[in-house]
């Protein structure tokens, strides 16, 4: 594993909120994330971490400073270019699953790949089955997304995030709505993605255990980076 290859970096990222009063929510955030790294952003009071994640995700384009993904400057690109870039490079897992309720689990997983259009329909279907298999949901594939339990839905949304083999997977409180058992499953999947598939996982969390067991944690306080710690992986948890 090449740990030192930078995949995403920021230079003095800053952002203001104007409501209710002007308030600097991110201040001079500079860091790098590497290939195959499981990386967490943790809050120690105040907001800001989700805001940072949305800036990193390219969905929020109003910020100061610069963002680079795979060495390419992202800041200043047009929204449609950014949408295509997200399709190629970034998978998302949110606190809420955001599955399309009218579609089956399989279709939900397939849609981003169908949009990207890199593979044929049959191949995409195969790959979607593979991802669901990996997350232990193959038998649920043809059920409507709305019929599954919360934990299952969250895993479907992870499968959806993985369908295009993105280099970066971003999670916004991915275990926020899950019980401890499902949280553990999601955690293990993330770890596996980073260590076995060499994908970069960037997750925002308020869960100390979750953060502690990731490879590296950035702690934010009042919009600034408080500390960057490399964690010692817990041998009991790593798969």
């Amino acid at each position: 594993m090449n740990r030192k290859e930078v995949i995403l970096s920021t230079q003095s990222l800053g952002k203001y909120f104007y409501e209710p009063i002007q308030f600097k929510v991110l201040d001079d955030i500079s860091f790098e994330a590497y290939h195959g790294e499981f990386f967490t952003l943790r809050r120690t009071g105040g907001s800001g971490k989700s805001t940072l994640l949305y800036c990193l995700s390219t969905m929020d384009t109003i910020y100061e400073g610069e963002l680079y993904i795979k060495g390419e400057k992202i800041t200043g690109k047009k929204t449609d270019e950014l949408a295509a870039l997200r399709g190629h490079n970034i998978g998302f897992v949110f606190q809420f699953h955001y599955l399309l309720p009218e579609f089956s689990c399989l279709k939900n997983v397939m849609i981003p790949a169908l949009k990207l259009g890199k593979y044929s329909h049959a191949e995409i279907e195969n790959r979607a089955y593979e991802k669901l298999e990996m997350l232990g949901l193959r038998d649920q594939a043809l059920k409507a997304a709305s019929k599954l339990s919360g934990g299952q839905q969250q895993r479907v949304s992870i499968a959806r995030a993985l369908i295009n083999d993105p280099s970066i997977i971003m999670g916004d409180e991915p275990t926020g709505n899950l019980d401890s058992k499902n949280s553990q499953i999601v955690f293990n999947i993330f770890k596996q993605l980073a260590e076995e598939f060499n994908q970069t996982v960037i997750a925002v969390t308020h869960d100390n255990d979750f953060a502690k067991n990731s490879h590296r944690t950035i702690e934010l306080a009042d919009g600034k980076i408080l500390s960057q710690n490399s964690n010692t992986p817990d041998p009991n948890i790593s798969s």
Partner: protein
Amino acid sequence: MKLAVNTEIALTHISTRKRQTLVAAMGVTIGIALYIFSDSLIKGFAQYSRAEMFKTFPHIRVYKEDEISQPLFTEADTNTVVLISNPKITTLTKSIVNPYLLLDQLKQHSYITSAAPQVNVDLFYNNGRSQLKGLGAGVNILEADAMFNIQSTMLAGNLQALASNLNAIIIGKGVAEKLNLGLDDNLSITSAQGLQKVMKVVGIFSTGNKATDESKSYVNIAAAQQMLKVGPDYITELYASVDDPDRSPEYAQKLQAITSYKVEDWQTSNADTLASDRIRAVMNTSVAFAIMMVAAFGIYNILNMTITQKLNDIAILKATGFSGKDIVRIFVLEALIMGVLGTILGLVTGAVLINILSKVYVGPPIGYFPIYYRLDVFAVGAIFGMLTSLGAGYLPARKAAKVDPVEIFRK
């Protein structure tokens, strides 16, 4: 591929909200059906009234216009006082000079399908002491039939009998009733020139126009000339039919170049009728437009509602690589599906309404209701339906494309 996934999403949205789709489509259906129905009604009626008009009016009419005397002094001179200025009609004769030469010249033009001479004579129909004022049309009855389809108005008798008998007359239904005349009865007529003649009634017609039926009659040209005490070269009017009645003014202008007599197209003679046709068409289009606006608003509303309910879906689609254009395509496609559905149903409903009304018998002289299937009306209806749906879909779709996913995810 790109289109396929957008289409699939649009189709899924549509198929999971069948009822709302149907309601939106119904709006379009009603709009299109009413447009097609009312426009067909108006166009059918215009077609009918035009056909009625062509039973009495030729496409092109050539006649001698009354001449007004010119003043003796054309230039006003300060030293001259004009004592007499009294313009008068100076037409000595209504006849066209050398009419058959002019008739041949008319017939040489490829757009003239038929041309015939006519001699009109003012006359009185007498029955004992009662008199009825009328107008005798001296015609070659077979040529006139080709032009005005007189046969279709005949209630009794036949046209051949007129052609073969110089003393025969075909009278209107009103004349027959007022003077208590039947087929083969004798009728005494008097012309304004004072000539009296006994004619044999060989036919009775009814045009549906009371004034015409109570005054008009057909006689042979020779009989009419006799009544006027003139010779066989006395022809007052030449009538011509053309291949395309709508181009009559253009043809009339061309013909005017070859003769000094007045050439008049039917549009000029019937400007009032045509103007009221146009006003009806404008009124109808405005009403149909208003109905379609309401239908478009229905689509707009339902799509707006769909988008408000689907903000989460739009946000995740945008997060996973769908551009604003993709979102617009998805929702415009949904509007188009509603529009196509509504338009097809509207075309069918319109056709059914026309079919029902065309079977309603109004009674003579109209017969069945004059409403017809017209391709142009259906085509305009379909295009109208599609365009309004497109417009009604685009506005909310553009709004959906502007949804900021971050704002949705933050909630």
